């Protein structure tokens, strides 16, 4: 990626000025948005790209021969090419399937590739830090195929316990694992894991929902087989997600949803599915969302993913240090305490105060954090927690967001202490 000339151009303040929602006033205070891990906010470029599309260019894709229909198709397919470029897909746009979100992408892998390729005794290896989106589809597949679902444990230092990886990999056909935990912030050693999976003849699928918008993703360099992510967690719109997989895997996957757009032919005695990625895109796809996603990808590339990553690492280090200094253990971080292989997701246990109460008080300060189990109940159980209050950073976050967070946490402790 040509980030060289952009290194000095990154300014979180400028990013902030690009995001209209960050000027909102809630409860008398300007919003302090610390919930990017749940959903990111959109810069004007994304919102305007979608508006312009609806105002001037909307038509169904892959159908009409008139001017705007061609433009809509070009916009939709252009987004596919941008996304492929963004993750360095070796086969380009032909390897990018548009879905609804990360969850649907995992369902597609399980219900298409999994159902066609896995049977009784085959093992799908997950980890204890997975989001439910990368757990439940595999349990569902287990019900119909008799596969075994196994979990890599998480150690007390909030990282994968890989000490028994060789044993765990026995019989494994797919290692499906998150690039970055949405609760702990832990980044996993994907290249090492891909190598280990491939050595036993297994494929590797990576949940990129939390990682793709916060650093460079190179599926070829990491040697991955599947990558899933969502538009709305990377400054793009809701309603669109991505499944990337290598072309030779894609060619062997049976269709997922049936309907228009995914066929080569339909007769009264049956149908023939289309070739390539459109085989997985039945019905009118999320066209405006693809346009928005394209704008988000270009916006992120303009910032430079290395810059975004460095900025968020700086914010995370600052927040971890100040949380420790200010609260002296009364606020416990559920996740690694250093920024090595760690992203800007900070889960907090505030001295036994329930996260819903914490989040409620924080809301009075205009601070948006997410309380709950974060769709990672096995991980919560692992650490004996019902829930945490989670703060997370994006490219528009500033250290002053942490100032407000600390102020609001002090008030919370005073109130419930």
């Amino acid at each position: 990626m040509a980030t060289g000339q952009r290194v000095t151009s990154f300014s979180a303040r400028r990013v902030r000025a690009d995001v209209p929602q960050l000027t909102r006033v809630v409860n008398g205070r300007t919003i302090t948005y610390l919930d990017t891990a749940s959903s990111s906010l959109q810069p004007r470029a994304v919102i305007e790209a979608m508006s312009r599309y609806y105002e001037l260019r909307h038509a169904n894709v892959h159908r009409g021969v008139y001017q705007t229909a061609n433009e809509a198709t070009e916009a939709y397919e252009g987004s596919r090419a941008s996304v492929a470029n963004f993750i360095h897909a070796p086969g380009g746009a032909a390897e990018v399937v548009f879905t609804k979100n990360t969850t649907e992408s995992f369902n597609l892998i399980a219900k298409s590739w999994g159902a066609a390729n896995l049977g009784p005794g085959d093992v799908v290896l997950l980890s204890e830090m997975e989001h439910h989106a990368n757990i439940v589809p595999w349990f569902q597949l287990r019900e119909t195929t008799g596969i075994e679902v196994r979990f890599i444990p998480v150690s007390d230092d909030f990282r994968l316990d890989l000490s028994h990886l060789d044993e765990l990999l026995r019989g494994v056909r797919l290692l499906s694992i998150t690039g970055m935990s949405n609760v702990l912030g832990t980044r996993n050693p994907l290249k090492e894991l891909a190598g280990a999976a491939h050595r036993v003849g297994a494929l590797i699928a990576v949940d990129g929902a939390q990682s793709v918008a916060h650093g460079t993703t190179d599926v070829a360099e990491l040697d991955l087989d599947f990558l899933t992510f969502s538009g709305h967690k990377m400054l793009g719109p809701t309603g669109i997600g991505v499944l990337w997989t290598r072309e030779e895997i894609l060619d062997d996957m049976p269709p997922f949803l049936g309907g228009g757009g995914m066929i080569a032919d339909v007769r009264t005695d049956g149908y023939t599915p289309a070739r390539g990625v459109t085989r997985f895109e039945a019905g009118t796809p999320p066209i405006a969302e693809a346009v928005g996603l394209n704008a988000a990808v270009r916006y992120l590339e303009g910032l430079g993913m290395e810059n975004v990553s460095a900025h968020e690492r700086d914010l995370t280090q600052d927040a971890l240090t100040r949380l420790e200094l200010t609260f002296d253990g009364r606020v416990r971080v559920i996740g690694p305490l250093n920024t090595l292989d760690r992203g800007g997701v900070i889960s907090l246990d505030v001295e036994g105060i329930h996260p819903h109460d914490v989040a409620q008080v924080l809301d009075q300060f205009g601070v948006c954090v997410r309380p709950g189990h974060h769709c990672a109940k096995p991980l919560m159980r692992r650490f004996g927690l019902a829930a945490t209050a989670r703060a997370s950073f994006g490219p528009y976050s500033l250290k002053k967001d942490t100032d407000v967070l600390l102020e609001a946490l002090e008030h919370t402790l005073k109130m419930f202490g």
Partner: protein
Amino acid sequence: MSNLEDLYREIILDHYRSPRNRGELPTPPAHRVEGFNPLCGDDVVIFLDVRDGVLEDIKLTGRGCSISQSSSSLMSTVVKGKPLAQVQSTIDTFKELMTGHETSLSNDDEHDDELDLRTLGELAALQGVVKFPVRIKCATLAWNTLRQGLEELASS
């Protein structure tokens, strides 16, 4: 911060910090019922000792936020020792309060509602929850679980 003070009244924080009727009862004779809020992971376990149509004793365990914990604590103090019919009507009144339709305090014509509200006593402190719609399920968890427990007892 007036809104927040509406939600976290002193009496609510008091019940949260020192929950009443906390603990377990031997089963049998007591009946055990469990309630669960899948959205936030909160749970409550209620032990009911019913004799001759009277809720002689009630104990609760479980974990949750201040609203769910104080609501269950307040509930236990109000229903303990009461005939089942009265317990049932208190549940109904509380649920009604949580729907936000309650206006009877300022309406002299509706004597029935006023009487019902009086039976709620300290529970009226939970009125502020209505202004925070996502927290209503916190306040009603114990009540729904109690109702479920009474139904199980009635059908057994």
